[in-house]
């Protein structure tokens, strides 16, 4: 294939912008759709936070917009709370963060950074996006089916999920679409990175962003299929009444459960689910590490410290991520030997994370640090990921997990990593690459107005959750006031909820900035940040095919402040001295 109609011929609108095979258009499609789902998932959370702060109180104004199956007189029903919980997690992880981090940033930046004209399989790329879109539509639509959306947690543990209402089936089918979208995408990324690097761009000269997307793609390729298998088995249980996850002798609501032969294993679902879902959390963090590495190198005007350590760490991390999954399952009756294995692997996997974080902090040493908006978000990522990673330690040790399992400590832990962690990195990436995609700069003042409140509020929201977890407050409680041990920390729930709603408001400068800058932002040339990597040698925005002439690479990705050079950056594709 390649360029049949596009050389010189204008494509009709629907082929240029809707069913485009250009990686940049597809990347923007992923990014915009991902941002919309992030916004939607955030709204679901804001609703939950009302019930948590003021249990049983009617939600003013907005509460009356909901049907009687969700809220009666504005008072939330437990089933709706559980739907919000399950779908907030599902949407944020699978419809928001990953599509933006991998589908959006990966698609847009990766071919440019390796000097390629597009992805290896442009049509497959387009199919990947539309599979994601379809999965997203199914997930959204599931709110409106009888019984509502999935409400068994994003983890969908059996047998609860097998006997749940029809929204769970929509969840499973939606997941099947999302999984296949990711699979096709990961094949594209791997083949593109291996086969289409520009001349001179060896693996040891790759920007760390490309390495992180490359390892992420292997995680998606190899970890998602077991969840596909699990989804097939759960669909069979729900629709064909097999008993893969259904033990014998179940009695539900006082009645012996009819129609199931039994003999199944409820924990089997957990093994298959977590086999994917643990690598999945590294899918959430690796692209973020890649993004902020680029931004740190560029805004310190010096090479990253320990490039080799970074690369080996990320590869090792990817490998280890496949053998830690049962640390989510310590309390399923696990004995000392199996749990010892998973504790050891979990401790081992903390090492590459520590190496990566330390290396990135050390990359600041000796630099000349520019506090641009992307750099602020990238810098904030470091301590936030630090807290997130550190709070994983008590959870990874099963003896401490006895008390902390399934409490708010877990929620605090993973949100620190994903929210002021990954999502900050994604904001950083948007501010950083916006000029390349649009030819215009985002407004700096609005960027800082977005950053500072967000940074403070993120900590106001998630630090108290660690306290609640130590107090033993369980997750997924519609009304925390029913338990004596949860009542004393209820004021924290009010504090957290107000902070969460303020965090929503704090995103307004970003939303305004984003849309205003597309049309009225200050116009910029092709390399406003004076960066070294290949995407900055293409026009802003790059045309179809990206480069007027195929670039040739002469040096590593972070040749900043090279002694003897006139400028403090020496682009990878510049042949001569500068």
């Amino acid at each position, binding site marked *: 294939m390649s360029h049949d109609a596009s050389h010189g011929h204008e494509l009709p609108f629907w082929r240029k912008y809707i069913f485009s095979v250009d990686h940049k258009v597809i990347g923007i499609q992923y990014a915009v759709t991902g941002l919309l789902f992030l916004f939607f998932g955030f709204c679901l959370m804001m609703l939950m936070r009302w019930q948590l702060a003021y249990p049983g109180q009617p939600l003013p104004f907005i509460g009356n917009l909901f049907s009687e199956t969700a809220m009666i007189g504005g008072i939330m029903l437990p089933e709706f709370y559980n739907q919000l919980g399950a779908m907030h997690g599902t949407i944020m992880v699978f419809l928001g963060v990953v599509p933006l981090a991998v589908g959006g940033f990966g698609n847009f930046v990766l071919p440019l950074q390796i000097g390629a004209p597009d992805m*290896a399989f442009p049509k497959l790329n387009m199919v990947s996006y539309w599979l994601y879109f379809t999965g997203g539509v199914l997930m959204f639509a599931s709110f409106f089916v009888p019984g509502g959306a999935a409400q068994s947690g994003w983890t969908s543990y059996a047998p609860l999920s097998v006997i749940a209402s029809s929204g769970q089936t929509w969840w499973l089918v939606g997941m099947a679409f999302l999984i296949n979208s990711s*699979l096709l995408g990961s094949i594209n990324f*791997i083949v593109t990175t291996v*086969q289409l690097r520009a001349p001179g761009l060896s693996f040891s000269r790759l920007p760390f962003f490309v390495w992180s997307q490359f390892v992420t793609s292997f995680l998606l390729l190899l970890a998602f299929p077991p969840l596909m298998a699990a989804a097939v088995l759960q669909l*069979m249980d729900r629709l064909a009444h097999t008993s893969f996850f259904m033990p014998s002798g179940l009695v539900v609501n006082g009645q012996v459960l009819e*129609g199931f032969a039994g003999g199944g294993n409820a924990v*089997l679902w957990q093994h*298959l689910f977590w086999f994917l879902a643990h690598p999945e959390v590294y899918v959430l963090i690796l692209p973020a590490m890649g993004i902020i590495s680029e931004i740190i190198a560029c805004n310190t005007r010096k090479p990253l410290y320990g490039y080799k350590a970074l690369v080996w760490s990320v590869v090792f991390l990817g490998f280890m991520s496949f053998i830690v999954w049962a640390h989510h399952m310590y309390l399923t009756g696990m004995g000392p030997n199996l749990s010892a294995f998973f504790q050891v692997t979990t401790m081992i996997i903390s090492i590459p994370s520590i190496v990566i974080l330390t290396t990135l902090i050390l990359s600041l040493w000796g630099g000349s640090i520019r506090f641009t908006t992307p750099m602020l978000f990238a810098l904030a990522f470091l301590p936030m990921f630090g807290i997130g990673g550190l709070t994983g330690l008590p959870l990874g040790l099963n003896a401490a997990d006895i008390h902390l399992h399934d409490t708010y400590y877990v929620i605090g832990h993973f949100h620190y990593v994903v929210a002021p962690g990954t999502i900050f990195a994604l904001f950083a990436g948007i501010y950083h690459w916006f000029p390349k995609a649009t030819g215009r700069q985002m407004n700096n003042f609005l960027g800082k107005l977005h950053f500072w409140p967000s940074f403070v509020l993120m900590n106001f929201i998630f630090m108290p959750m660690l306290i609640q977890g130590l107090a033993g407050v369980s997750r997924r409680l519609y009304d925390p006031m029913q338990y004596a041990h949860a009542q004393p920390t209820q004021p924290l729930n009010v504090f957290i909820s107000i902070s969460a709603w303020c965090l929503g408001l704090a995103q307004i400068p970003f939303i305004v900035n984003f849309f205003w800058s597309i049309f009225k932002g200050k116009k910029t040339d092709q390399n406003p940040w004076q960066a070294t990597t290949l995407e900055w040698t293409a026009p802003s925005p790059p045309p179809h095919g990206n480069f*007027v*002439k195929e670039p040739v690479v002469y040096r590593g990705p972070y040749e900043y402040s090279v002694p003897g050079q006139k400028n403090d950056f020496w682009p990878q594709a510049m042949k001569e001295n500068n």
Partner: protein
Amino acid sequence: MSEAGLIKHISHPHPVTGVTNSKLGVWCFLASEVMLFGGLFSAYILLRTGVTDWPRGHEILNVPLATLNTMVLITSSVTMVMAWASLQMKSLSKYRLYMTLTVLLGLAFLVVKAFEYGHKFEHHHFPSTDNFYATYFTLTGLHGLHVIGGIVVNLYFLLFGVKMWEKEPDQLAGRVEAAGLYWHFVDLVWIFLFPVLYLL
């Protein structure tokens, strides 16, 4: 070709990796398929070892018929290779012959499977009957879907092969090779399924 704007290594292998894009792509895809069927086989092992009353496959399923089916699928892998080899030897007519045989053999496999399923349904044995049947129907069903997928792809290359052969012969050979790798994998999965489900 290193003309700016054109994707490289579609028909000609990469000098370092030695493969075309589609070949590497198919190998990646097959790796994911190994994980898919691996997940299912792992589930089967966990379920079977968790109970004491799992029936023996040969007591319930038709081993001779499945043996025949195994031969059908293996033969279709051979004809698939012959189809690709015919393209290498620049013989379009031989390619069409072997590809047609491959498609027909694939359909024959499905017909036999339909007989097997129908026989079970007639005797009121469904996936819900017990976990042996659940595993049998799910694993062979998912495999069957993969066979259908392979037949569709092969049919596409059979029907539209002439046009592609005339425009870009190297690309057609590469794509048929990639389809062949997939088809061999589908065959290989069956070679694991057959003893595990029918014999053990």
